[in-house]
């Protein structure tokens, strides 16, 4: 996202005449001279213009043995990332020639060496297109190396035309950032290709219960973490609370996940951050995809409009209603609207100048169901009558990215949107409508080789209109403390505006090669509670090379304030005297490259939480609940990640977290387990390209059971006519049994001339383990049983892609 860009055109090899592309052919010609000297020497470096990298050591790719019998030719387009020394630090496939050829091309690409790109005398990282052509005929081929052409000398009065994207290596602004690639996102078994569910496989991320899609990061409450899509905070992450994310994986470019100690550009969060980047529409040709599986169907179309504009249109609809509707009707439920969800995305990108790109992105999601339960729930008759659930949001986001110079970049974003949540259960209802405006402006300046500055504004404002008619309840857990039927209800309404401006600044100081110090500060104002907060933060990353392999020390310490939820501060729902919650993050760790694609990361963390908002029943408030900053919390542990990056046929990792999360609701209370505590979290997964379009993967997970509060008996609630549970004290004193599960996935892809067909089978819970998700009780809580989760579940999907 925050790159130094000198020109705007990527994927140059696909648009330029082939003679200008970096290409290497395996052909049936006699061996030719490798690396023929260019006809002219490259021009003397111009301090104001970039000098592109120059190939100085070529490598022959090995023609795949598996393809020799077929005699196929193939072209593999790559994007190479070069570091300041001219070594290839990363390579990715932009034009696939098939899995076997791709793997051979990637393996060879990493051994290429270049004279690095330069600005003046300073070597800088770069990103270039590259291509290998594979062609086989008897006798066995010998490589012909085509050296890259010299950069053209600008004729008087003309513009330089070499289209190379030179990318300043984005210095990480956080000690720990985990990045998942598209391939990892879409091929991890057990996630059905869902991007955000793939995060659950990373260290520090707990497994949420059952169908719940909550993001639980380093023992934090889900409400303490946030998800951004291209810088816009998203109010709903999953359809129906956990079925599938609201943005399909196909339109994502990457997911950046910060488990803690993130930079000051993110605020109002005390847990973790997920920043999802949207893919720009493809530039070279119109393409699309169509996919169907057990749960939903999706369509996507994208491509260029002229040379400077690109578009993308996508949509998805579930068909859970097709099979769930009849199931509900069979159960005696009158169905007006069976559960259905939609989401849609539309994007237009336009290159205003070679330095400025405008992007308009519109996206949204909608979930709805409407039922009539003539036979209410026997355990709480409030669950009956007319049942309505409708949640949705939409955003229109306009962003402009301007690169004044290689050292100065300015990004602006404005987004407007609408959120709606309607829940109805008989006479009980909540209705929330929000209009949201988000403004972000981010300026980055490279002042010298040693210092860069980044600063910006982050403003959230909008209007709200909320009405609810419910008995007082704990909103976070949804717990009424027993049946809701027959209880006095509160009827509350409020409308108004909210304002939460924030500003931040961060320096990136590189006193020594590979050492980055990241001091920063953020300040926020919360108008609900008339409170200013200041969050100083300091991060450190030190990359060094005791051998050819990288070692990184990383650490951070910082203050993170999170405003209380609106219902906790805005009258008549809450208490305007409630202050923001506060977290102190401490982390220290090391990353070690063990071999080229294999890396080990170990990190310890500690979080100190204070001013946590605690709710108590109260007859002194309209809502029946009062809030105060009485709570405290602490989370500590260690994360281990052994990762094999997706640079060849295989990717995978083993992630293990040892963690403890505790809370107390008052200073004089004893510590108790937090409801989201999970002591051991182990995930081992891998995926391997077998060749001929086959890919197979597996994932094993083991997670400590979640804490829960047993019921020790029942007390009759004579107004509901049913028993209410009598809970053991203190809360969360017991644990469910541990969870373990094996998921297996197999993909098959057929490559045709102009399109691709893929099928996959994702078998979740392959050995049908009966995992306990909850404890269920009989009518008077005198008996209990373990409630099992999903059994073995095969999901079949099919996708066509242009």
């Amino acid at each position, binding site marked *: 996202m925050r790159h130094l860009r000198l020109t705007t055109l990527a994927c140059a090899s696909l648009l330029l005449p082939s003679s200008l592309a970096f290409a290497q052919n395996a052909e049936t010609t006699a061996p030719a001279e490798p690396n023929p000297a260019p006809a002219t020497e490259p021009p003397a470096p111009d301090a104001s213009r970039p000098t592109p990298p120059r190939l100085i050591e070529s490598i022959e790719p090995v023609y795949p043995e598996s393809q020799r019998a077929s005699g196929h030719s193939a072209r593999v387009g790559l994007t190479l990332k070069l570091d300041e020394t001219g070594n290839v630090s990363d390579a990715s496939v932009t034009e696939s020639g098939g899995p076997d050829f791709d793997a051979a091309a990637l393996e060879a690409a990493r051994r290429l060496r270049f004279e690095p790109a330069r600005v003046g005398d300073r070597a800088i990282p770069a990103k270039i297109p590259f291509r290998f052509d594979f062609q086989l005929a008897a006798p066995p081929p010998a490589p012909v190396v085509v050296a890259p052409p010299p950069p053209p000398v600008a004729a008087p009065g003309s513009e330089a035309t070499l289209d190379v994207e030179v990318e300043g290596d984005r210095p990480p602004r956080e000690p720990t950032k985990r990045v998942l690639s598209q391939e990892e996102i879409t091929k991890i078994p057990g996630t059905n290709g869902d991007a955000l569910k793939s995060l659950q496989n990373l260290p520090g991320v707990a497994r949420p219960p059952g*169908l*719940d899609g*909550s993001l639980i990061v380093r023992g934090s409450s*889900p*409400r303490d973490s946030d998800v951004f899509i291209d810088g816009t905070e998203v109010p709903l992450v999953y359809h*129906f*609370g*956990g079925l599938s994310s609201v943005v399909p994986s196909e339109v994502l470019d990457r997911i950046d996940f910060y488990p803690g100690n993130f930079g000051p550009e993110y605020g109002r969060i005390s847990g973790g951050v997920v920043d999802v980047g949207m893919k720009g529409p493809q530039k070279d040709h119109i393409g699309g995809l169509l996919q169907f599986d057990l749960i939903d169907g999706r369509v996507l179309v994208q491509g260029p409009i002229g040379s400077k504009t690109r578009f993308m249109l996508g949509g998805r609809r579930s068909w859970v209603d097709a099979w769930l509707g009849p199931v*509900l009707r069979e*159960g*005696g439920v009158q169905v007006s609207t069976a*559960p259905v969800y939609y989401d849609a995305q539309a994007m237009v990108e336009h290159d205003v100048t070679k330095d400025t790109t405008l992007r308009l992105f519109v996206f949204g999601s909608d979930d709805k169901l409407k*039922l009539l*339960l*003539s*036979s*209410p*729930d*026997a*355990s709480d*008759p*409030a669950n*009956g009558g007319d049942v309505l*659930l409708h*949640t949705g949001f939409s955003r229109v986001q306009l962003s402009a990215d301007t690169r004044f110079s290689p050292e100065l970049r300015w990004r602006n974003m404005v987004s407007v949107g609408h959120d709606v*949540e309607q829940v109805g259960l008989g*006479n009980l209802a909540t209705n*929330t409508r929000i209009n949201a405006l988000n403004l972000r402006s981010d300026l980055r300046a490279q002042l010298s080789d040693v210092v860069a500055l980044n600063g910006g504004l982050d403003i959230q404002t909008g209007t*709200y209109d909320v009405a609810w008619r419910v*008995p*007082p309840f704990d909103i*976070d857990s949804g717990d*009424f*403390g027993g049946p809701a*039927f027959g*209880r*006095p209800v509160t009827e509350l309404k409020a409308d108004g505006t909210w304002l939460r401006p924030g500003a931040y600044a961060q320096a990136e100081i590189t006193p020594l090669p590979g050492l980055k110090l990241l001091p920063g500060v953020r300040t926020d104002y919360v108008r609900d509670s008339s409170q200013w907060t200041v969050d100083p933060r300091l991060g450190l990353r030190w990359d060094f090379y005791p051998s050819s392999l990288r070692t990184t020390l990383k650490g951070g310490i910082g203050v993170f304030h999170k405003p209380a*939820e609106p219902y906790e501060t805005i009258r*008549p729902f809450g208490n305007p005297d409630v202050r923001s919650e506060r977290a102190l993050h401490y982390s220290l760790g090391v990353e070690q490259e063990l071999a080229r694609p294999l890396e080990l990361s170990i990190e310890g963390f500690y979080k100190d939480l204070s001013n946590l908002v605690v709710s108590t*029943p*109260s*007859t002194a*408030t*309209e809502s*029946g609940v009062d809030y105060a900053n009485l709570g405290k919390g602490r989370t500590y542990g260690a994360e281990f990640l052994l990762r094999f990056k997706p640079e060849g046929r295989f990717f995978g990792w083993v992630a293990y977290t040892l963690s403890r999360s505790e809370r107390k609701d008052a200073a004089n209370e004893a510590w108790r387990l937090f409801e989201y505590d999970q002591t051991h979290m182990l995930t081992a997964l891998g995926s391997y390209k077998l060749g001929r379009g086959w890919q197979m993967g597996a994932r094993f997970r083991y997670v400590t059971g979640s804490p829960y509060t047993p019921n020790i*008996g*029942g007390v*009759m*609630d*004579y*107004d509901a*006519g049913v*028993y*209410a549970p009598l809970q053991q004290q203190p809360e969360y004193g017991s644990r469910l049994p541990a969870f373990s599960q094996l998921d297996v996935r197999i993909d098959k892809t057929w490559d045709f001339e102009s399109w691709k067909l893929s099928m996959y089978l994702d078998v979740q819970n392959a050995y049908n383990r009966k995992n306990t998700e909850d404890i*269920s009780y*009989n*009518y*008077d809580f*005198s*008996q209990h049983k373990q409630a099992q989760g999903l059994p073995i579940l095969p999901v079949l999907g099919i996708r066509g892609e242009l």
Partner: protein
Amino acid sequence: MNRSLTPALLLGALALTACGATFDPGTQVDSLRVLAVRADQPFAHPGDTVHLSSLSYDPQGRPLEWAWAACPSPAGSSVEDCLDQVRASAAGGELPLLASGPGVDSVDVPVPADLLDAIPVQGREQALAGVVSVACPGTLDVLSVDSRIPFRCTDADGNELGLHDMIVGIKRLFLRETEVNQNPVIDNVTFDGEVWPADEVKEVDGCVTDDFDIDDCELERHEIAAIVNPASTESGVDEFGRDFHEELIVQHFTTDGVFEDEVRIADDPETKWAARASASGTTVTVWFIVHDDRGGVSWTSRRAQVR
């Protein structure tokens, strides 16, 4: 603005509804039960005396000893909020006992004239007083201990009985200045579409079902319904100026039988019921208990002889 957990919780509740129970249903009354407690005035006014009466059944026919205590100003409206106040009172040796003794299955509850005065105006929409009742099939003692259930129930042999063997319950009295709520009125009960008089004992066949599954009883089941007087569904504007429209439900219980639906909305009360073959040669009782969602309750029962 943060995401709500409500959608996932709602789906979970619906899943329970759609999937059915895995235990014997609560409609089967085969142990000591107190099925309902009714206030002659669901809405109590300061200075009033409210009469509470109970509907109980013990298959063993044991004499019951009762205790009734007050939680006059609980912090909230949940059962545990009332018990927390009981605990605090009991620990101080000052449990406000209203009545106790063998067969005391009803009680008069005086509502202090100043009870509403202590509640801020903004909290009066949820103002209530609670009454705790305990029914013990033996000897009941009231304890001065730091406990949410400061009662001890012992059987004839002196063995202490646990919470599952005695019945503890909470009845709320909604506190209002002037507003009144009527208990619902059950006009009649129907059996296979015909009125089922209260004094008529129907003759029915017993159904063999171990799973309490009405689908096992195609030949033995009958359509029954408690017909609630339409005027019982009150609506209007309450004393706080809020529009309201009551929701009424009908709960079903039986000494030995199976229902298609344990609960129905009063607007659509028909359900199916079959006596079980295990009751052959005996008389079974079917109870219909109607609740409105503002503390009102009424009940009726019918009997059937199982061939």
